[in-house]
């Protein structure tokens, strides 16, 4: 391997990447989402999924759930960079706590007729997906679950006649009585 010429090209990236889910409590003020996204794009971090919604309206607190990948050093950096933003109350690494529940909702549109419809319905039952719209030649399924479950469901629907998918991204919460 040739030596990289500049210090900029030689960050130790030998560590394997990890995927982490971060819950971030923020003051719900204008621009806060732009700040968070700008941090990720500006510093070259990955966003696998990002969801945001106000969760405590009296206190103007929103909760952002971010799924990101990086080396352990980068993940730590991301958490510190988030934590030092002025409107950020708290950052919790749900993956490190190891006791979190992560769910995503997807709506999956499938087109087909005859056997394809029967197969689609059968699979939906197995995955506990609900039919939320139906025509003579299509279904829209609503499915919730871990990201991997939804990926699997979508993959199975593909050969049957997958038209499109809309996913919410991951929401996460810890188990047990304590909050963040």
């Amino acid at each position, binding site marked *: 391997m*040739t*030596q*990289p*010429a*500049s*210090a*900029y*090209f*030689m*960050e*130790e990236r030998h560590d394997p990447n990890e995927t982490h889910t971060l819950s971030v409590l*923020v*003051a719900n003020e*204008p*621009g806060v989402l*732009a*700040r968070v996204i*700008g941090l990720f794009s*500006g510093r070259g971090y990955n966003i696998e999924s990002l969801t945001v919604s106000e969760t405590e309206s009296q206190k103007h607190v929103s909760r952002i759930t971010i799924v990101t990948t990086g080396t352990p*050093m980068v993940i*730590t*950096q991301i958490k*510190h*960079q988030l*934590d*030092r*933003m*002025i*409107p*950020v*109350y708290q950052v919790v690494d749900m993956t490190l706590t190891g006791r979190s529940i992560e769910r995503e909702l997807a709506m999956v549109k499938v087109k087909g007729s005859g056997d394809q419809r029967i197969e689609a319905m059968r699979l939906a039952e197995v995955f506990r997906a609900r039919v939320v719209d139906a025509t003579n030649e299509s279904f829209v399924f609503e499915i919730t679950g871990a990201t991997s479950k939804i990926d699997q469901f979508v993959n199975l629907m593909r050969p049957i006649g997958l038209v499109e998918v809309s996913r919410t991204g991951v929401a996460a919460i810890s188990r047990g009585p304590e909050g963040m």
Partner: protein
Amino acid sequence: MSDSKSHDANQMTGAAMIVRALVDHGVKHIFGYPGGAVLPIYDEIFQQGDVEHILVRHEQGAGHAAEGYARSTGKPGVVLVTSGPGATNMVTPLADALMDSIPLVCITGQVPTHLIGNDAFQECDTVGITRPCTKHNWLVRDIKDLPKVLHEAFYVATSGRPGPVVVDVPKDVQFATGTYTPPRKSDVHVSYKPQTKGDPNQIRKAVALMANAKRPVIYTGGGVINAGGNASQTLRALVEATGFPITSTLMGLGAYPASGKNWLGMLGMHGTYEANMAMHDCDVMLCIGARFDDRITGRTDAFSPGSKKIHIDIDPSSINKNIRVDVPIIGDAGSVMEDLLKAFKAEGKKPKIDPWWFEIGRWRARNSLAYKKSDDVILPQFAIQRLFEATRGHDTYITTEVGQHQMWAAQFFGFEEPHRWMTSGGLGTMGYGLPAALGVQVAHRDSLVIDIAGDASVQMTMQEMSCAVQHELPIKIFILNNQYMGMVRQWQQLLHGNRLSHSYTEAMPDFVKLAEAYGGVGMQVFKPGDLDGALHEMIKVKKPVLFDCRVAALENCFPMIPSGKAHNEMLLPAEANDDATAKAFAGGKALV
């Protein structure tokens, strides 16, 4: 006073609130430039006498002046500019201040709220544009929020790791009337509470490492200057108590005196041999308020391979960012050093490190800052040394531009106190030094303020000479005129086959005439023998001076660690012949 009376007294327009908040936060000077979207604020400024306004000639100048003001006083620098182009001209100083952790409060005018988003005249998305180059920013859409945001702005700019903030105020909010609430000590910010006190357990671990060190080194940075107060005194006491050698980054110069016996000189790309070798070979590194920048570490995988590293920093994101450390301590440098010093003394074990000092002595003997003197031409290093001698006994502040002259200033000017050295380190902004000197001089009217400049850099913000003349700020612009963008030329020589693409300063202005055209004083020197006399004259003049010091055109700045190389692969001046240089830089064109 009855409630209703004080209520009346606190009824005012947004523009008046802004000026009132400045006064309440102890602001004596602001730097700015008027325009349509800030006229109500300028009208308020006109009608009061508490805050002095310094009129610059370009908003970038206001920003750098405020940076110089802040760095030399420890107080936040305040800037007032108009919407659109006023705000975009501020982007460079904001980015500069963010990189170098300088507290700035910048107030920008904005088009009226009902026009926002309509491509109104002189509208730009100021909070959008400045979001990545501020610590935080606000657009105030409602007069009710204005007092709170203004107080918050000062709090955020100055607490924790300092930085620049922007408050964008639409013109209708400046005109609107509301109730002003003064700042209260008890105001606590809901989500931003930086930790200042170090964890005693971590401090114990640090002391254990220090007490058993054989080859320790203290590596300090801008954080010690930021910590203000007694931090620099505590650092000196810590060095005294431990007997450890100490080096500093460009940003931390002056925290420990250059004349101190444990001083190794600056470290990093253009640092001394002894400082870099000590960093490379140490067994315990105590880093205080520095951020392991790539100018310091060189090759990260070869950076100080055998050491245990202790890192004191107020910003957790500085820790383990570039270099993994063994004992992180989050907190204010001043407070943590005090606790560390107490704990170290209590431990009562001062390690014996004579062999280490002996080794350092051998590195020192290499005399890595040596250069060939000449009777015919002024060597830039010599010019700085003479300047340093000439300013001894004066109350001196130094600013710089960016380039070789900046590095020579860092190497050859001895700083004895903190807050005396203002330079653009992180962003490396040419054009910083002249306006920064203005800001310093505003804060220290009777002191000697010198911008050590390059002939290319100084032309970037030259127009502020006019501001200096207007406000009777007798700054001294000492130009090391090598007729090149020397630092660029140096890299082209070392890395690009000596093809000097666009690095020659063609059509050089006559700096003497230029100074006179502005109403300042111009001076010019060619011969080493004339230098001292001219310097004394420059110092005596009570007007802004442009000093055109003609120096050897092709001198290069050494020592140098080619980027991407390890500390012990340093190129020394004596060895910088063609062969050694070619080898040192082999394959390194992608370097930054």
